[in-house]
Protein backbone atom coordinates (compact mmCIF):
# COMPACT_ATOMS: atom_id res chain seq x y z
CA UNK A 1 0.00 0.00 0.00
CA UNK A 2 1.22 3.47 -0.84
CA UNK A 3 1.91 5.76 2.08
CA UNK A 4 -0.91 8.29 2.42
CA UNK A 5 1.46 11.17 3.10
CA UNK A 6 3.07 10.76 -0.33
CA UNK A 7 -0.25 11.46 -2.06
CA UNK A 8 -0.81 14.48 0.18
CA UNK A 9 2.67 15.75 -0.73
CA UNK A 10 1.87 15.26 -4.42
CA UNK A 11 -1.43 17.12 -4.20
CA UNK A 12 0.23 19.90 -2.22
CA UNK A 13 2.87 20.26 -4.91
CA UNK A 14 0.18 20.39 -7.60
CA UNK A 15 -1.70 23.02 -5.60
CA UNK A 16 1.46 25.10 -5.32
CA UNK A 17 2.10 24.80 -9.05
CA UNK A 18 -1.44 25.98 -9.76
CA UNK A 19 -0.99 28.99 -7.49
CA UNK A 20 2.34 29.78 -9.18
CA UNK A 21 0.71 29.51 -12.61
CA UNK A 22 -1.99 31.98 -11.57
CA UNK A 23 0.44 34.42 -10.02
CA UNK A 24 3.22 34.35 -12.62
CA UNK A 25 1.20 34.52 -15.82
CA UNK A 26 -1.17 37.36 -16.58
CA UNK A 27 -3.10 35.58 -19.32
CA UNK A 28 -6.72 34.54 -18.84
CA UNK A 29 -6.25 31.07 -20.29
CA UNK A 30 -3.35 30.37 -17.94
CA UNK A 31 -5.52 31.59 -15.07
CA UNK A 32 -8.07 28.87 -15.92
CA UNK A 33 -5.30 26.30 -16.28
CA UNK A 34 -4.04 27.17 -12.80
CA UNK A 35 -7.54 26.79 -11.38
CA UNK A 36 -7.86 23.38 -13.04
CA UNK A 37 -4.56 22.27 -11.49
CA UNK A 38 -5.78 23.36 -8.04
CA UNK A 39 -9.08 21.52 -8.50
CA UNK A 40 -7.22 18.39 -9.57
CA UNK A 41 -5.09 18.57 -6.45
CA UNK A 42 -8.30 18.68 -4.41
CA UNK A 43 -9.71 15.74 -6.39
CA UNK A 44 -6.61 13.67 -5.67
CA UNK A 45 -7.05 14.46 -1.97
CA UNK A 46 -10.71 13.44 -2.07
CA UNK A 47 -10.05 10.16 -3.89
CA UNK A 48 -7.05 9.18 -1.79
CA UNK A 49 -8.94 9.95 1.42
CA UNK A 50 -11.86 7.89 0.17
CA UNK A 51 -9.59 4.97 -0.66
CA UNK A 52 -7.68 5.04 2.61
CA UNK A 53 -10.66 5.61 4.90
CA UNK A 54 -12.79 3.03 2.99
CA UNK A 55 -15.58 5.57 2.70
CA UNK A 56 -17.50 6.30 -0.48
CA UNK A 57 -18.36 9.89 0.47
CA UNK A 58 -15.03 11.22 -0.76
CA UNK A 59 -15.54 9.70 -4.20
CA UNK A 60 -19.02 11.23 -4.42
CA UNK A 61 -17.68 14.64 -3.39
CA UNK A 62 -14.96 14.30 -6.02
CA UNK A 63 -17.56 13.47 -8.67
CA UNK A 64 -19.66 16.51 -7.79
CA UNK A 65 -16.55 18.72 -7.67
CA UNK A 66 -15.60 17.46 -11.13
CA UNK A 67 -18.99 18.40 -12.59
CA UNK A 68 -19.15 21.80 -10.91
CA UNK A 69 -15.58 22.58 -12.04
CA UNK A 70 -16.62 21.84 -15.62
CA UNK A 71 -19.57 24.25 -15.30
CA UNK A 72 -17.36 26.92 -13.76
CA UNK A 73 -14.80 26.57 -16.55
CA UNK A 74 -17.52 26.96 -19.18
CA UNK A 75 -18.70 30.20 -17.61
CA UNK A 76 -15.18 31.59 -17.19
CA UNK A 77 -14.35 30.82 -20.83
CA UNK A 78 -17.56 32.58 -21.95
CA UNK A 79 -16.69 35.63 -19.85
CA UNK A 80 -13.12 35.55 -21.14
CA UNK A 81 -14.20 35.45 -24.78
CA UNK A 82 -16.59 38.33 -24.16
CA UNK A 83 -13.87 40.31 -22.41
CA UNK A 84 -11.27 39.62 -25.08
CA UNK A 85 -13.69 40.62 -27.84
CA UNK A 86 -14.16 43.99 -26.12
CA UNK A 87 -10.59 44.73 -25.14
CA UNK A 88 -8.70 42.90 -27.90
CA UNK A 89 -6.92 40.55 -25.52
CA UNK A 90 -7.33 38.56 -22.36
CA UNK A 91 -4.52 40.04 -20.32
CA UNK A 92 -5.67 40.68 -16.77
CA UNK A 93 -3.46 43.76 -16.52
CA UNK A 94 -6.07 45.64 -18.53
CA UNK A 95 -8.75 44.91 -15.94
CA UNK A 96 -8.05 48.26 -14.33
CA UNK A 97 -10.12 49.81 -17.12
CA UNK A 98 -13.21 48.31 -15.46
CA UNK A 99 -12.91 50.57 -12.43
CA UNK A 100 -16.03 52.53 -11.84
Amino acid at each position, binding site marked *: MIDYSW*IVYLSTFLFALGIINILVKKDGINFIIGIEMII*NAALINFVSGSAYLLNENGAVYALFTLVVAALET*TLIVALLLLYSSRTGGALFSSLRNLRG
Partner: protein
Amino acid sequence: MELGLEVLGFLLTALVMIIEGIAVVMSRRPMHSILFLFLLLLTAAALFIELDAVVLALAELLIYNGGITILLTLAASIEPEEIRAPRIKPDIILPLVAAVILVFMISTYKFGNVSNFSYTSLGTFILSGYGILLLVVMVMSIAAALSATYMISKEDVGI
Protein backbone atom coordinates in the same frame (compact mmCIF):
# COMPACT_ATOMS: atom_id res chain seq x y z
CA MET B 1 8.25 0.15 3.24
CA GLU B 2 8.50 -2.47 0.56
CA LEU B 3 9.31 -1.12 -2.86
CA GLY B 4 6.78 -3.23 -4.69
CA LEU B 5 5.23 -2.80 -8.09
CA GLU B 6 2.42 -0.65 -6.69
CA VAL B 7 4.81 1.79 -5.00
CA LEU B 8 6.99 1.93 -8.10
CA GLY B 9 3.93 2.67 -10.21
CA PHE B 10 2.87 5.44 -7.88
CA LEU B 11 6.35 6.94 -7.85
CA LEU B 12 6.48 6.88 -11.65
CA THR B 13 3.04 8.47 -11.88
CA ALA B 14 3.91 11.15 -9.33
CA LEU B 15 7.20 11.93 -11.07
CA VAL B 16 5.50 12.27 -14.45
CA MET B 17 2.77 14.41 -12.89
CA ILE B 18 5.28 16.76 -11.26
CA ILE B 19 7.24 17.10 -14.51
CA GLU B 20 4.04 17.88 -16.41
CA GLY B 21 2.97 20.44 -13.81
CA ILE B 22 6.34 22.18 -14.06
CA ALA B 23 6.04 22.08 -17.86
CA VAL B 24 2.61 23.73 -17.62
CA VAL B 25 4.11 26.57 -15.60
CA MET B 26 7.24 26.87 -17.75
CA SER B 27 5.50 26.92 -21.13
CA ARG B 28 5.32 30.36 -22.68
CA ARG B 29 2.48 29.81 -25.11
CA PRO B 30 -1.00 28.99 -23.76
CA MET B 31 -1.50 26.20 -26.29
CA HIS B 32 1.52 24.32 -24.97
CA SER B 33 0.28 24.81 -21.42
CA ILE B 34 -3.05 23.27 -22.44
CA LEU B 35 -1.27 20.30 -24.04
CA PHE B 36 0.73 19.68 -20.88
CA LEU B 37 -2.46 20.11 -18.81
CA PHE B 38 -4.02 17.39 -20.98
CA LEU B 39 -1.18 15.05 -20.07
CA LEU B 40 -1.43 16.07 -16.41
CA LEU B 41 -5.12 15.15 -16.36
CA LEU B 42 -4.32 11.85 -18.08
CA THR B 43 -1.78 11.06 -15.38
CA ALA B 44 -4.30 12.04 -12.71
CA ALA B 45 -6.70 9.52 -14.24
CA ALA B 46 -3.94 6.89 -14.01
CA LEU B 47 -3.50 7.78 -10.34
CA PHE B 48 -7.24 7.41 -9.78
CA ILE B 49 -7.10 3.94 -11.35
CA GLU B 50 -4.25 3.07 -9.01
CA LEU B 51 -6.40 4.21 -6.08
CA ASP B 52 -9.21 1.88 -7.27
CA ALA B 53 -11.47 4.76 -8.31
CA VAL B 54 -12.13 3.60 -11.85
CA VAL B 55 -15.43 5.49 -12.15
CA LEU B 56 -13.76 8.76 -11.27
CA ALA B 57 -10.93 8.05 -13.69
CA LEU B 58 -13.47 7.57 -16.45
CA ALA B 59 -15.28 10.76 -15.41
CA GLU B 60 -11.96 12.61 -15.42
CA LEU B 61 -11.15 11.33 -18.88
CA LEU B 62 -14.59 12.17 -20.24
CA ILE B 63 -15.18 15.55 -18.58
CA TYR B 64 -11.69 17.01 -18.28
CA ASN B 65 -9.75 15.47 -21.14
CA GLY B 66 -12.72 15.30 -23.47
CA GLY B 67 -14.48 18.53 -22.60
CA ILE B 68 -12.53 21.16 -20.72
CA THR B 69 -9.24 20.88 -22.61
CA ILE B 70 -11.08 21.06 -25.93
CA LEU B 71 -12.92 24.15 -24.68
CA LEU B 72 -9.66 25.73 -23.53
CA THR B 73 -8.03 24.90 -26.87
CA LEU B 74 -10.86 26.64 -28.72
CA ALA B 75 -10.60 29.68 -26.42
CA ALA B 76 -6.82 29.85 -26.84
CA SER B 77 -7.11 29.58 -30.61
CA ILE B 78 -9.60 32.46 -30.77
CA GLU B 79 -7.58 34.76 -28.55
CA PRO B 80 -4.79 36.80 -30.11
CA GLU B 81 -1.41 35.93 -28.67
CA GLU B 82 2.14 36.92 -29.27
CA ILE B 83 4.21 34.20 -30.92
CA ARG B 84 7.38 33.34 -29.07
CA ALA B 85 9.58 30.30 -29.17
CA PRO B 86 8.81 27.82 -26.37
CA ARG B 87 11.50 26.78 -23.96
CA ILE B 88 10.43 23.15 -23.96
CA LYS B 89 10.09 21.29 -27.22
CA PRO B 90 6.73 19.54 -26.92
CA ASP B 91 7.21 17.47 -30.05
CA ILE B 92 9.94 15.49 -28.29
CA ILE B 93 8.51 15.36 -24.77
CA LEU B 94 4.84 14.75 -25.52
CA PRO B 95 5.12 11.30 -27.16
CA LEU B 96 7.53 10.05 -24.48
CA VAL B 97 5.27 11.16 -21.62
CA ALA B 98 2.18 9.76 -23.32
CA ALA B 99 3.96 6.44 -23.86
CA VAL B 100 5.01 6.24 -20.20
CA ILE B 101 1.46 6.97 -19.05
CA LEU B 102 -0.13 4.44 -21.38
CA VAL B 103 2.35 1.70 -20.46
CA PHE B 104 1.75 2.34 -16.78
CA MET B 105 -2.04 2.39 -17.13
CA ILE B 106 -2.05 -0.90 -19.00
CA SER B 107 0.54 -2.73 -16.90
CA THR B 108 -0.53 -1.87 -13.36
CA TYR B 109 -4.30 -2.17 -13.61
CA LYS B 110 -5.56 -5.46 -12.24
CA PHE B 111 -8.32 -6.45 -14.62
CA GLY B 112 -11.34 -7.99 -12.99
CA ASN B 113 -10.16 -7.25 -9.47
CA VAL B 114 -12.79 -5.68 -7.23
CA SER B 115 -11.59 -2.78 -5.09
CA ASN B 116 -11.75 -2.50 -1.32
CA PHE B 117 -15.12 -0.81 -1.44
CA SER B 118 -17.54 -1.44 -4.24
CA TYR B 119 -18.28 1.13 -6.91
CA THR B 120 -21.04 -0.98 -8.40
CA SER B 121 -23.66 0.58 -6.13
CA LEU B 122 -22.36 4.13 -6.54
CA GLY B 123 -25.47 5.30 -8.41
CA THR B 124 -27.76 4.02 -5.68
CA PHE B 125 -25.50 5.56 -3.06
CA ILE B 126 -25.60 8.98 -4.76
CA LEU B 127 -29.36 8.89 -5.26
CA SER B 128 -30.06 7.82 -1.70
CA GLY B 129 -27.63 10.09 0.12
CA TYR B 130 -27.07 13.02 -2.22
CA GLY B 131 -30.34 13.40 -4.12
CA ILE B 132 -30.81 17.09 -3.30
CA LEU B 133 -27.21 17.86 -4.20
CA LEU B 134 -27.71 16.05 -7.50
CA LEU B 135 -30.75 18.23 -8.23
CA VAL B 136 -28.77 21.36 -7.36
CA VAL B 137 -25.98 20.33 -9.73
CA MET B 138 -28.52 19.64 -12.48
CA VAL B 139 -30.07 23.10 -12.07
CA MET B 140 -26.59 24.65 -11.97
CA SER B 141 -25.61 22.91 -15.20
CA ILE B 142 -28.72 24.18 -16.98
CA ALA B 143 -28.14 27.71 -15.64
CA ALA B 144 -24.45 27.62 -16.67
CA ALA B 145 -25.26 26.45 -20.19
CA LEU B 146 -27.99 29.06 -20.67
CA SER B 147 -25.95 31.92 -19.21
CA ALA B 148 -22.86 31.03 -21.27
CA THR B 149 -24.95 30.91 -24.44
CA TYR B 150 -26.58 34.24 -23.54
CA MET B 151 -23.26 35.92 -22.81
CA ILE B 152 -21.73 34.77 -26.07
CA SER B 153 -24.76 35.65 -28.19
CA LYS B 154 -25.48 39.10 -26.69
CA GLU B 155 -22.75 41.66 -27.21
CA ASP B 156 -24.18 44.32 -24.93
CA VAL B 157 -24.12 42.36 -21.68
CA GLY B 158 -22.35 44.36 -19.02
CA ILE B 159 -19.47 42.69 -17.18
